């Protein structure tokens, strides 16, 4: 008698739903335990909608995010256009450099900006970096290269026929811009803008370090201040609700607009271009690239130069390095353990695919400070302060890394399922044997890549450690922050260099690991 193998999946593979259910429960548990206390306390009295402080902070949050987004896009457009239509030695290097600011831990970049534009910096007095100007400057430093890369990836996706057609039809540069480049860019611009706006809204490190008191603070940082400095959990919860509302709207919009997390592209395929040959166009492009480089190279260079000069590996640096690496490894492992069964289930059932991406997006919507507030309230309520701080930091880093890990993993797992499921079913290969013999060898590249991505996210994070850390428990970013706080800028630069090198090593490893195909 014909027997069905358990639940029929698309490929007739038997798969126990238990691991995916556990993974889903863990995510839901982490997020709900953050959300419910915030909702409960926030609604009970923390959220006073007419509150002047709340309005001011929310207004400042949106103002700085809006300014940062607009300026990032304005800076990115000419740079992306120039890089798209020029071939010159060093172009590939510049495009790779554009990925640098976003990979760099925020605290390192902030230190670089202070070194350049601060009171004792190379360009002291150009900007007032403690306050709105500094915050926007730092956000442009991070996000204009991201925007430039995203716009560039749209431009290089224009089919080569369009360039040939425009050459044959005698388009001038103005026509090429109006008929080809701008339509292609503008279709993607809302998604790029919302992503940057979201990143700036949820940005913590930049505002914590460059914000000037209550006058220039964002919701994310105000939550931290309410929680850790003023010990006013009700106000923290109220702020958290507002932050959650803003971020939900932004994530929803960004998903509607089809905005994706920026992919790691090589931009190797380049179409032959026939436009932009006038002297003026060449000069303009040259200027745009120089301007772009001058925004983001000096702060990095400052950290490197100052760091090399003041490199000292004391006991505190060694301990913080070990703590950072340990937390990175643990949180990356946790992220993978959660994402693996979800990706497996999502590869085979439509319902799971939707459920999994929903859970992961929930992790994206939930700003770290909101999550922390909830956990803080919960632990406080049941006075179980015995949960060790490192565990909280690991859990939070893992949640923050979920979107990266899941997107890197899901497509590859689905690919493996498509390729191997029928064959494995017919040969009776399943369970541990399948994992060791089929999936692990086939997926070790995406697995390694997503592990490294998660480790990079956790390595540079200052949010979790600031919210849960203590005197006895520090990571590298927290140590840099403390050194900056006591005006030991040179020492901070040395530590920042170590953190930056560690991060870059992981980034390069991730790039190599994912690029090699064997």
């Amino acid at each position, binding site marked *: 008698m014909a027997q069905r193998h358990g639940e029929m999946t698309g490929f007739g593979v038997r798969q126990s739903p238990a691991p995916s259910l556990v993974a889903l429960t863990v995510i839901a548990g982490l997020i709900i335990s953050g959300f419910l206390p915030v909702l409960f306390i926030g609604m009970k009295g923390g959220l006073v909608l007419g509150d002047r402080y709340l309005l001011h902070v929310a207004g400042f949050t949106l103002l700085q995010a809006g300014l940062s987004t607009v300026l990032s896009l304005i800076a990115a457009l000419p740079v992306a256009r120039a890089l798209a239509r020029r071939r010159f030695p060093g172009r590939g290097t510049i495009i790779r450099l554009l990925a640098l600011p976003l990979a760099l831990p925020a605290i390192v970049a902030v230190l670089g900006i202070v070194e350049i534009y601060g009171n004792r910096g190379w360009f002291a007095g150009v900007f007032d970096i403690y306050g709105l100007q500094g915050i926007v400057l730092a956000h442009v430093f991070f996000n204009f290269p991201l925007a430039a890369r995203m716009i560039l990836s749209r431009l290089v996706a224009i089919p080569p*026929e369009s360039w*040939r057609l425009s050459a*044959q*039809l005698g388009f*001038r540069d103005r*026509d090429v811009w109006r*008929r080809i480049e701008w339509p292609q860019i503008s279709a993607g611009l809302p998604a790029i803008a919302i992503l940057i706006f979201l990143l700036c809204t949820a940005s913590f490190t930049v505002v914590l370090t460059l914000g000037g008191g209550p006058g220039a603070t964002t919701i994310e940082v105000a939550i931290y201040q309410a929680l850790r400095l003023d010990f006013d959990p009700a106000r923290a919860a109220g702020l958290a609700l507002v932050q959650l509302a803003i971020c939900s709207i932004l994530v929803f919009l960004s998903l509607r607009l089809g905005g994706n997390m920026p992919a790691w592209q090589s931009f190797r395929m380049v179409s*032959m271009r*026939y436009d932009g040959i006038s002297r003026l166009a060449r000069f303009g492009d040259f200027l745009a690239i120089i301007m772009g480089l001058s925004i983001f190279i000096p702060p990095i260079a400052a950290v490197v130069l100052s760091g090399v000069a003041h490199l000292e590996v004391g006991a505190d640096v060694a301990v913080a390095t070990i703590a950072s690496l340990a937390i990175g490894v643990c949180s990356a492992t946790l992220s993978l353990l959660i994402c693996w069964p979800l990706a497996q289930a999502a590869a085979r059932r439509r319902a799971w695919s939707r459920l999994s991406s929903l859970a992961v997006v929930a992790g994206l919507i939930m700003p770290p400070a909101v999550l922390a507030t909830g956990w803080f309230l919960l632990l406080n309520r049941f006075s179980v302060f015995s949960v060790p701080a490192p565990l909280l930091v690991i859990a939070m880093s893992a949640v923050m890394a979920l979107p990266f890990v899941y997107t890197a993993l899901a497509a590859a797992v689905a690919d493996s399922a498509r390729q191997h499921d029928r064959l494995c079913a017919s040969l009776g290969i399943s369970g541990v044997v399948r994992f060791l013999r089929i999936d692990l060898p086939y997926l070790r590249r995406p697995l390694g890549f997503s592990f490294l991505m998660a480790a990079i996210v956790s390595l540079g994070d200052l949010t979790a450690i600031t919210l849960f850390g203590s005197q006895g428990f520090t990571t590298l970013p927290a140590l840099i922050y403390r050194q900056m706080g006591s005006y030991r800028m040179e020492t901070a630069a040395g530590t920042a260099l170590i953190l930056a090198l560690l991060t870059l090593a992981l980034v390069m490893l991730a790039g190599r690991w994912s690029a090699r195909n064997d």
Partner: protein
Amino acid sequence: MISLDNVAFDYEDMAMRFSLEVPKEAFVAIIGPSGAGKSTLLSLIAGFDIPLSGSILIGGRDMAGVPPSARPVSMIFQDNNVFAHLDLRQNVAIGLLPSLKLTAAENGETDDAMRRVGLYELRYRKPGEVSGGERQRVAIARALVRDKPVLLLDEPFAALGPSLRRDMLDLLREVQKDKQLTILMVSHQPEDARYAASHTAFVEQGRILAMSPTEEFFQTKNPPELRDYLGDWRS
């Protein structure tokens, strides 16, 4: 009308060398295996690629140093012949003036061309709202308003079914007659050549190994490489 004399070009690892004489108002089908250099041949004539040496003459005029827009040539690609955000009519009119600020006469010309290819009713649609065959008709209409004596087509109907392909070839031949065009068309289908072309050329390994009137071309099947390429194909 078109004459290539020892035109040399390197593409990746292949050294190409083309010599070709195309009489006025000929309809030449170019066949041959993938990667043989068929598309490169058209690109050289259109000016998208620049030869290392040799000369290209169109209508007796040397094309050395002449940019694509100044050559008496229109080109139709396999796809991406249209700008997705412009409607069909604008996609045709852009062949007259990139700024699309047309005079009444030019507007009339555009409408005539749209009627000629049977797209007048669909003229305000966007390319995404019409079929692949209709998008190729837009490209033909644009070539009509541009009114250049040479029309190059790079596998223009490869994505279309047999009957639609015949319709398009019929349209091409009518247009050719009206405008006295010289046509070069790259195709993967020998039957397209049989159906529409006055001459057929065979390209392999960056060389033009044969070119003769179509009837003769398929009867003699010379040289042996052509016989190998066609195998036991019969029209």
